[in-house]
């Protein structure tokens, strides 16, 4: 439950961060050299908001790795791709091809399977311990 909550907040932060960054970066392009564009980007609060949200994502992702398996967390966060496609469609008016919707569906299915596999590797010692603590309760 803890894993699910942390990862869902992480994915939402990542998607919002990407949307803000895309919005901001599309508006700072045009005119001047790379340095001028970088300066414009650095003075745009939306760039900072997007970056901050991506830092929140990375902090939560690392936190989840402190207790859950990498082979669980990595495919589970792939659900972010689906949210990103949907956000691109609804907030940024990007066209989403049928192949992309199909890909989203396949990812969702994959994440569903991974989420059914349990978040951590259960070593024999750990499972014996949890059995024992259940019995003692």
């Amino acid at each position, binding site marked *: 439950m*803890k894993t699910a909550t942390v990862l869902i907040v992480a994915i939402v932060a990542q998607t919002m961060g990407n949307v803000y960054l895309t919005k901001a970066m599309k508006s700072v392009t045009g005119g001047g050299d790379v340095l001028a564009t970088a300066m414009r980007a650095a003075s745009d609060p939306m760039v900072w908001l997007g970056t901050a949200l991506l830092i929140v994502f990375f902090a939560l992702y*690392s*936190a989840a*790795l*402190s*207790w859950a*398996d*990498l*082979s*669980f967390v*990595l*495919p589970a966060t*792939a659900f972010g*791709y689906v949210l990103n*496609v949907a956000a691109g469609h609804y907030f940024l008016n990007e066209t989403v091809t049928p*192949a*992309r919707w*199909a*890909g*989203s*569906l*396949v*990812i*969702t*299915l*994959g*994440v*569903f*399977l*991974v*989420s*059914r*596999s*349990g978040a951590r*590797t*259960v070593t024999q010692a750990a499972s014996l311990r949890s059995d024992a603590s259940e019995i003692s309760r």
Partner: protein
Amino acid sequence: MMTALMIAIVVLGGSAGDVFITKGMKQVGEISTVHPRKLISIAARVLTNVNFLIGLFFMACSFFAFLAVLSWADLSFVLPATSLSFVITTLGAKFILNEQITRLRLAGTVLVCLGVALISLP
């Protein structure tokens, strides 16, 4: 050839980064508090953990290789290729971190990899 090499750095760098970060976070130990002062001391331990920093370095290499390869190759070619990292990272988790990859988890991961490739096609 150069493109293949760069994509290899993107994929392997990303996977190595994830494996090292996981190693570091497991050393720091399970985070089970939301108390701000405790979180700050945990953050300090994370940011001084050697494995975590090595992982961060690999991720940075992967990211810069990604930017470099995009300067001459098409995103629609590079992005599907990077979906391979899901499978490579899972292998790293199994053989380096000794995680149990059940059939269910493997099947889900392969589907995710396929789906990400589909999404990133032009």
